[in-house]
């Protein structure tokens, strides 16, 4: 596989170096400042906190690479937790069917998003804005307030840990490896980059851009549901609105990680760091007892700073081209 490291894959990953340096710097700084941060308990905490967002952001990255956006992904997260919340005591579903149903629902939403974008030519922003509302409605219909419970055996499995190694961390690792391998080393992955880079050029090269687009949105919906399932493992229940913030936070994580909103540039390697940065900022500011409204401001400033950084570097790249 050594040969597989050639080409644009490497360049795409290289874009993420600055954000990793930033995360490492932040970790190092906090390790010094905050004794609480150094504990194994807090490490597990950070991993658990970052997990749902980092998972969801994988799906968002795929769609952004296509040059699209998925605003419905947060609603899919909520819907998945709601479906799982019927699997606990007195629930009407076994955990197996509940999981399948959640994944299928996510994939279906994504598929319909893709279909709307490709066949009806609805701009992705509007298409997914519409499906965001519909899916949220379905979630609220199923459960109009937070509640229910998730199958005990399943939550116990998700919350398993041995030392610093947690099930959440392992799940995340598998998801990222799979997504990275898919995007970098498979035909559909390459076609995703090509379609996002220039749809018409890709089409003329024989790439089935419509199919690729539908595939991308479907994967995003599916991964959104995975994010919801992981989140349900943390809250042990269902919540019809808990996912709302994930739609935009996942965009933020992807962009922080170097994925271009214009499509064709970036990848999940950076997204992971982007999600970690966002989640850690929360964690650190919590540890430092900073009020939550300051936290929003800090998050916003980080995002703006990152965009400036990429923009400046992007201009450099253009000049070289």
């Amino acid at each position, binding site marked *: 596989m050594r040969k597989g490291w*050639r080409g644009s894959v490497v360049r795409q990953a290289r874009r993420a170096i600055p954000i990793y340096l930033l995360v490492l710097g932040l970790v190092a700084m906090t390790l010094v400042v905050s004794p609480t941060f150094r504990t194994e308990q807090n490490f597990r905490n950070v991993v658990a906190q970052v997990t749902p967002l980092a998972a969801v952001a994988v799906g968002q990255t795929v769609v952004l690479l296509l040059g699209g956006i998925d605003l419905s992904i947060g609603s899919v997260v909520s819907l998945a937790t709601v479906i799982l919340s019927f699997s606990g005591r007195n629930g009407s579903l076994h955990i197996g069917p509940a999981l399948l149903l959640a994944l299928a629902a996510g994939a279906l939403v994504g598929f319909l998003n893709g279909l709307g974008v490709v066949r009806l030519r609805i701009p992705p922003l509007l298409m997914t804005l519409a499906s965001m509302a519909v899916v949220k409605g379905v979630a609220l219909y199923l459960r109009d307030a937070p509640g229910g419970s998730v199958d005990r055996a399943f939550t116990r499995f998700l919350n398993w840990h041995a030392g610093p190694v947690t099930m959440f961390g392992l799940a995340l690792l598998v998801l990222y490896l799979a997504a990275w391998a898919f995007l970098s080393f498979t*035909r559909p992955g390459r076609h995703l*980059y*090509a379609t996002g*880079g220039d749809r018409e050029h890709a089409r003329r*090269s*024989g790439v089935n851009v419509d199919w690729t687009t539908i595939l991308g949105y479907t994967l995003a919906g599916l991964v959104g549901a995975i994010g919801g399932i992981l989140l349900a493992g943390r809250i042990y229940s269902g919540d019809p609105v808990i996912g709302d913030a994930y739609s935009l936070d996942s965009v933020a994580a992807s962009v922080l990680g170097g994925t271009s909103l214009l499509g064709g540039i970036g990848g999940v390697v950076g997204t992971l760091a982007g999600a970690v940065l966002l989640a850690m900022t929360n964690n650190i500011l919590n540890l430092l007892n900073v009020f939550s409204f300051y936290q929003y401001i800090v998050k916003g400033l980080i995002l703006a700073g990152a965009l400036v950084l990429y923009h400046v570097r992007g201009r450099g790249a253009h000049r*070289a*081209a």
Partner: protein
Amino acid sequence: MPGTTSSQVVLEGRNLTKTFPGVKALTDVTIQCKSHQVLALVGENGAGKSTLVNLLCGVYQPDGGEILLNGTPTRVRDPHHAATLGIATVHQELSLLPHLTVAENILLGSEPAGRTGFLRTSDIYRRAAEALADISPSIDVDAMVYDLSPAERQMVEIAKAWSQRPRVLILDEPTSSLSKVEAQNLLSLVTRLRSQGTSVIFISHRLDEVFEISDEVMVMKDGHRVDTLPIGELDRGKLIQLMVGREMTQTFPPRRPTPASGRPLLELRDAARPARPLGTAGSAGSCGVSLTVYPGEIVGLGGLEGQGQRDLIRGIFGAEPFSRGQVLIDGKAVRIDSPEAAIAAGVAFIPDDRKAEGLVLPLSIRENMILASLARVVRFGFLQGKREQAMADDYMGKLAVKAPSADQVVGNLSGGNQQKVILAKWLLTQPKLLVLHEPTRGIDIQTKVEIYRLLRQLAEQGVGVLIATGDMLELIGLSDRIYIMYEGSVTGEVRGAEATEERLMALSSGGGTA
């Protein structure tokens, strides 16, 4: 020699018709492509050449007529289907993805993958290298496409088509972005492919090339086929006559009788921009160029592609300002650090990439024309529709823009007409100095002639014209004075009347003294 090997019809389009909203692009056109043959497709812009090609390679579906492959009626569903049928196309607009490597681009859409869907990366690079070896072995398959020069990109594009080992290879204006040497390499490649049996459709505005490599010539005009003739039965004059429908005796307007003098309109003193780091795109930068343009003269800027002409003229317009040196306009030193500053100083600039830089495609002719001189039609902050309309109509007439009305969307116009709209846009700003970069690239002969006349008229009114062009005939025929650039500096200055192709070539390749 042409057509000596037994050649048979590989691909045939019979009575093809195609209509777009408001335009009948193609009417009852029949084309036959034979193996071991190069068929040149010529005609003015808007004659329907690209539409015909797009039908043959599946980009569009015909409204009438049929396509036959080896005698069998075939529906070419899409470009990918065309490729599997052995029809590969290099379109006029390049279709590479800048953020993929050369190899990834060449194999895009036909990547070798294992049963699990994983790419066979080593196969991709090997096959790309094989395809490139025939075309342009010096290009690195690992390079990112955004690092390549336009000429290199063109070669990669051709390698991409060639990698499919097509039976029919369609080249739509393949040489328009190439220098003479590179174009020559391409022509010899086409000849080689022909001898291996490939049927080539070759579209070019450069008639020399048509005469050099084609076996047959098909002439198109206004969406119809005028005639298909063996090259032996044609000469330049006859071909042009078939294309335009009338004799074209004089392409270039007469030069000014005496050298221009007085105070230079534009003077560059040792202007430079640092050359780019090695390994990045093709340009050599410009290092210390001094030149002058007098009012009333047309000055040509020539040389091989990528010798710094682009940087120089973009510097004059402030698009990428000079890092050192002086710019004097009307004898006064001015600091041009942005296009705004250049416009304020009376400079207008017509870029080479008209779609990306010259026009707002979704806007109408009128809106595009007025865009750079909005101040002239605004009163109390409101646009004055009537005045705007009058100005646009005036220039539609002056430049003979072919469109039903000034409200036509610019994106639907042919290349020649788009260029006229850009010219009108800048003429409306009443510039003292007009700088043009490849103003007639990809434009039909008739429109070229109109543009040449217009430029001469402007010069006669006292405007200074600086034109950077890679078209040697244009350079010699149009210019009063010519500067030639090589590796970022001016290697010679020649009076237009004394210029010969040999002399300019010598200067262009760094040899010879002025």
